[in-house]
């Protein structure tokens, strides 16, 4: 299960920058190779986004499985990894999900050091606002559950919220006044591209082949066992095929003759022009339908909702943008004169219970890690970790076990609509 010879990965540091500056930055090592595909691999990972690259990295690093190819139809991190609003948190309601997301958050906390690539994880705190009495009950319940699950969390009142976010409209006479919020101080944001690149660089250094511009056109199975993938660069045989291609999971499943409990929908986001720092935390609101943070560059990064219909167009309805900005102006009346620079869409795979599917399918050797809906970015490290473990051992990692495909037959759904919220 050995892949390409591991190579020494150049160590990034301030000192290195100084050294390279002396040579006008002409001698930097490539972040990753651009290899030709081999005829076969132990494991082929379909999808070179954050989750797929993390899976490859942990397979190689933790389990020593380096005979791995990541097959990406476009460029690394080009799907939802590069399109999301980068919120990281773990304050989910159900035990199953909070364990998984908390595991992920712990990995985030040391990820830059682990990868020697600054993913700019910025634990600046996440506020989930409550605007109705029922939302406050739900917040109380979720925060209590978080604490029992070892996830530090608090309920804040409007006064405390206003101190953290002075520009927020906390007036009691607004249409949906802010009644309180849950606060997870360890939550925050990260730099999305860096996550993909950091994992890619380290996976490559461990010998994983990253095959960009390589589109999977078919999944071959014999006697109910997966044997490899057809690609735009020819057939690649594999003992295990692992699909981690958010937004295209249904299409890949169909290649293996499977259908999934998933619908793919456009999810939109937008950024403002860069402005000076004025928002130091992440603010999320389900009722008013807004989530917002300020990137290091100064842009307000704003998540909009999903469209109600299926779509692979990476663009959505303008109404969604309108509603989102109404919510932003309602919560932050001072932002009304700030201007939107860009809006865009990703494609999210949505499961009926707003939770992912991780594990083997009825086709042996064919694994899926999908259905992360609107919140997959935060799970990137954890998802890769448990999926790699699942692949390496051919049985679900304990944290992944509740998210197997058979829950849709047994009814054991992990309902996270409340905590997953509008989109996050």
């Amino acid at each position, binding site marked *: 299960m050995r892949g390409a010879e591991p190579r020494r990965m150049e160590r990034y540091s301030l000192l290195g920058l100084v050294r390279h500056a002396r040579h006008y930055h002409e001698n930097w090592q490539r972040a990753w190779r651009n290899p030709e595909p081999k005829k076969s691999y132990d494991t082929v990972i379909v999808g070179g986004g954050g989750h797929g690259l993390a899976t490859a990295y942990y397979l190689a690093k933790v389990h020593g499985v380096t005979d791995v190819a990541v097959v990406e139809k476009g460029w690394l991190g080009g799907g939802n990894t590069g399109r999301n609003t980068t919120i990281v948190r773990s304050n989910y309601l159900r035990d199953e999900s909070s364990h998984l997301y908390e595991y992920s958050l712990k990995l985030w906390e040391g990820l830059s050091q682990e990868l020697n690539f600054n993913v700019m994880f910025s634990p600046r705190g996440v506020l989930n606002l409550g605007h109705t009495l029922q939302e406050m009950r739900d917040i109380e319940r979720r925060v209590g559950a978080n604490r029992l699950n070892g996830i530090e969390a608090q309920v804040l009142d409007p006064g405390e919220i206003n101190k953290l976010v002075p520009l927020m409209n906390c007036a009691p006479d607004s249409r949906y006044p802010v009644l309180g919020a849950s606060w997870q101080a360890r939550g925050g944001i990260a730099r999305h591209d860096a996550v993909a690149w950091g994992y890619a660089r380290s996976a490559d250094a461990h010998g994983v082949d990253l095959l960009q511009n390589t589109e999977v056109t078919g999944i071959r199975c014999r006697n109910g066992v997966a044997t490899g993938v057809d690609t735009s660069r020819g057939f690649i045989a594999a003992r295990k095929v692992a699909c981690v291609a958010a937004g295209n999971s*249904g299409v890949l499943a169909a290649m293996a003759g499977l259908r999934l409990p998933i619908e793919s929908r456009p999810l939109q986001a937008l950024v403002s022009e860069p402005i000076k720092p004025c928002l130091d935390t992440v603010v999320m609101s389900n009722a008013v339908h807004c989530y917002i943070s300020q990137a290091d560059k100064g842009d307000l990064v704003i998540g909009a909702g999903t469209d*109600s219909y299926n779509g692979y167009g990476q663009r959505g309805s303008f109404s969604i943008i309108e509603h989102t900005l109404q919510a932003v102006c309602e919560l932050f009346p001072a932002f009304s004169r700030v201007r939107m620079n860009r809006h865009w869409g990703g494609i999210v795979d949505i499961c009926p219970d707003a939770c992912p599917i991780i594990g083997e399918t009825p086709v042996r050797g064919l694994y899926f890690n999908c259905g992360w809906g609107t919140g997959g970015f935060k799970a990137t490290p954890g998802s890769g970790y448990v999926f790699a473990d699942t692949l390496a051992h051919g049985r679900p990692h304990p944290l992944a076990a509740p998210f197997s495909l058979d829950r*849709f037959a047994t009814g054991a759904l992990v309902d996270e609509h409340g905590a997953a919220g509008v989109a996050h």
Partner: protein
Amino acid sequence: MFRIHCPHCQEVRSEEEFSYAGEAHIPRPADPSSLSDAEWGEYLHTRTNPRGPHREMWVHTAGCRRYFNVLRDTVSYEILAVYRVGEMPPERGEA
């Protein structure tokens, strides 16, 4: 921002007036009790979710409140056909 021809109002109307109502042609099993858990779960949750022509239901929420079927390309968002509940889509685009 779709423009959808409502087969009942017989007018092209803007997306804001409509709601998406999921994949079309998933009839409710005649005798649910005869299905296994897996079969019932498939009816409840499994969807075709194609990239390309998709047979789906919409309802004219702000207009005549009628449900109807749409054949829509999920990549180009082109609406290939609109037809009433109980009818089948025209041949083209049937996957």
